[in-house]
């Protein structure tokens, strides 16, 4: 089945753009611009050929999503054995260099380690390819700005995968806020609790200079959501256990945000829990109502099986098996944007503003919880 664009299309009722599957499909011809047809089905995204750079943990997730969308995929990884193995499993093609991948695809999907988002994205833009990039947009704001400039100069689209905006519970809560069900958001509490990624010591993940640590990697999901629900942030205070007490080896960070609207947010990100924990929770309190969610209490299927092992993967990812894959919704929406310019619920500017917020939180954590102020005008520049 490839007719899945409409799934994501069902999303938007009152937000950035009215999107609906049928309309998107009828616009196929007009949007064909630089896009060459792939060999996939008849959905919008199936016209695309996508090239995944970096076939690690998230690259594999994206490959699964693209494949389910009927998109033709080409993959590239400096670890060619890994790329070959994955390509074999999903029926993708392997490119032997970045240049070869750029030649073979319409859109480049950047799934490299965080500090290597910018060089790959910029090269792709210069090659005239649309770019999808995993979060965080880049390791530094300067890198992210360079990506925006490159995309602008090349006239290609650049979108960043803040996938929480595609998780149904997060979308439903924001829709309830936008519908006025709880009034003006006043106090938000956003929680993401998991275990330390099971990567070998020396992995880029554990190098703050490359990954940005737990704030840029994990907390950024909820920092982005806080902005999406309560608007721009003007001040952030953040504490991080790994910064305060590196010898304890516990990765746990908490930030307190003040939004321009006056709303305040408590954002907690943890890799301190035992595997296979992956718990997300939020509470959005408004001027006349309250929204609560806790993934600990919303699993519709609970197995009590006598299996061995804790079932944990390398890195925790939410179990979305019963709701459709949010990565697939995300990539389908992005693909449609690239085919016909349909607006998306997130933009590269948006991702840059979220990155600036994450960098400010990380800076606060490294300066003992000093309050770092942000200029909301800069966020929308």
């Amino acid at each position, binding site marked *: 089945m490839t007719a899945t664009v409409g799934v994501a299309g069902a999303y938007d009722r009152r937000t950035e753009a009215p999107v609906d599957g049928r309309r998107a499909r009828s616009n196929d011809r007009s949007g064909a611009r630089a896009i060459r047809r792939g060999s996939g089905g008849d959905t919008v995204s199936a016209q695309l050929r996508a090239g995944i750079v970096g076939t690690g943990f998230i690259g594999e997730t994206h490959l699964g999503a693209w494949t389910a969308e009927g998109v033709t995929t080409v993959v590239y990884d400096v670890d060619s054995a890994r790329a070959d193995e994955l390509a074999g499993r999903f029926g993708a093609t392997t490119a032997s260099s970045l240049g070869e991948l750029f030649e073979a695809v319409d859109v480049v999907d950047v799934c490299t380690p965080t500090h290597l988002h910018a060089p790959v994205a910029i090269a792709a833009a210069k090659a005239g390819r649309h770019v999808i990039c995993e979060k965080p947009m880049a390791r530094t704001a300067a890198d992210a700005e360079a990506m925006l400039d490159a995309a602008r100069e090349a006239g290609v689209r650049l979108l960043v995968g803040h996938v929480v905006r595609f998780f149904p519970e997060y979308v439903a809560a924001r829709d309830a806020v936008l519908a006025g069900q709880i009034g*003006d958001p006043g106090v938000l509490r956003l929680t993401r609790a998991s275990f330390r990624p099971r990567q070998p010591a020396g992995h880029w993940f554990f190098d703050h200079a490359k990954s940005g640590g737990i704030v840029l990697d994990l907390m950024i999901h909820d920092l982005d959501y806080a902005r999406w629900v309560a608007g721009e942030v003007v001040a952030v205070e953040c504490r991080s256990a790994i910064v*305060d007490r590196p010898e304890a080896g516990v990765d746990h960070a908490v930030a307190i945000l003040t939004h321009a609207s*006056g709303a305040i947010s*408590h954002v907690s990100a943890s890799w301190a829990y035992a595997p296979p924990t992956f718990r997300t929770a939020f509470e959005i309190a408004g001027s006349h109502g309250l929204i609560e969610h806790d993934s600990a209490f919303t699993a519709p299927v609970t197995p009590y099986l006598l299996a061995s092992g804790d079932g944990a993967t390398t890195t925790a990812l939410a179990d979305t098996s019963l709701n459709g894959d949010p990565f697939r919704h995300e990539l389908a929406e992005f693909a449609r944007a690239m085919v016909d310019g349909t607006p998306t619920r997130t933009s590269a500017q948006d991702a840059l503003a979220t990155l600036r917020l994450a960098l400010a939180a990380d800076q606060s954590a490294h300066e003992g919880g000093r*309050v770092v102020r942000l200029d909301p005008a800069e966020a929308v520049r």
Partner: protein
Amino acid sequence: MTGHERRAAAGNVRIGVLSMEHVHARSYVPLLADLPGVDLAGIWDANPERASSAAGGAGTRAFGSVAGLLEQVDAVVVTAPNAEHRDLVEQAAVAGVDVLCEKPLATNVPDARAIVDACERAGVLLMTAFPSRWNPAVRTLRSTIVAGGLGEVVALEGVNTGAMPDIHAAWFVDPARSGGGAVTDHVVHLADLYRWMLGSEVVEVYAVANRILQEHFDGVETGGLVSLRFANGTFATIDCSWSKPRSYPTWGGLSISAIGTGGAITVDAFRQRLAVYGTREAGISWPDWGPDSDRSMLEAFVDAVREQRQPAVTGVDGLRAVEIVDAAYRSIEAGEPVRVGSAGG
């Protein structure tokens, strides 16, 4: 004759209640009437009608004057509006009567310190009413931490949110009588539990607050988030907001996530509850079937009075919590973290 000498003559501990204005008095009075070894000796309230109706309901005497009641008791429970604690505790201390004072101990640091000093000077016992210290879930977390079961604790996150207390009494949202809004009302419980669990003091506080929640009201802060740094390096946060709407099935709750080198433990202190669905008008309610922490706290107070020993929660514990609240307000004002206690002025 001091209160203690009078008790020696009597046998049962005679306890009076000073003021019915705090909603918790409605829980304490029937418990005191029921506790073995306790005589609920009387109730005073600034409003004589309120005193006599409460006294009638509990089968005890109403007193028209504080002094009159203090002559007849070994100990008092002070459940007046926060700003009136000091005057009542000072009178009790002078009369040689032991005191259990409702939280927060006072609306400002000088008053809290005066309360502690007055009791010390008079040689009477002073306990601050922090019933959550007797909540079994909270106690389990604390004993696990103390036994090293969580390793080194690096962070605590707590939520003590509730309905806006103007549903109980108007003084709760009158800063002249309450001292403030959600920050005054809800920070002290978790701040006290954290100090107790960590055995360390708060050195720095960052807090933010707003008035967006509970739009029917325009006054004290209704939303607040507080970040604490302890001397031992642990950081902790508190959501103290009055964020539960009127439609919420219970008063609120208290939960803690404790993070350490050994992993994490989460505690939801009032998770032991039913969900009861009534008629459309009655709506949904979540009656609590867990153990009654108020009862355990009152028993602990009575035992301390009977044995004339320092209660498990002291007046100084109450004072420390007030210092943290004071620092939170200073931080809200400054928009920056502030030091706690003497360092902060």
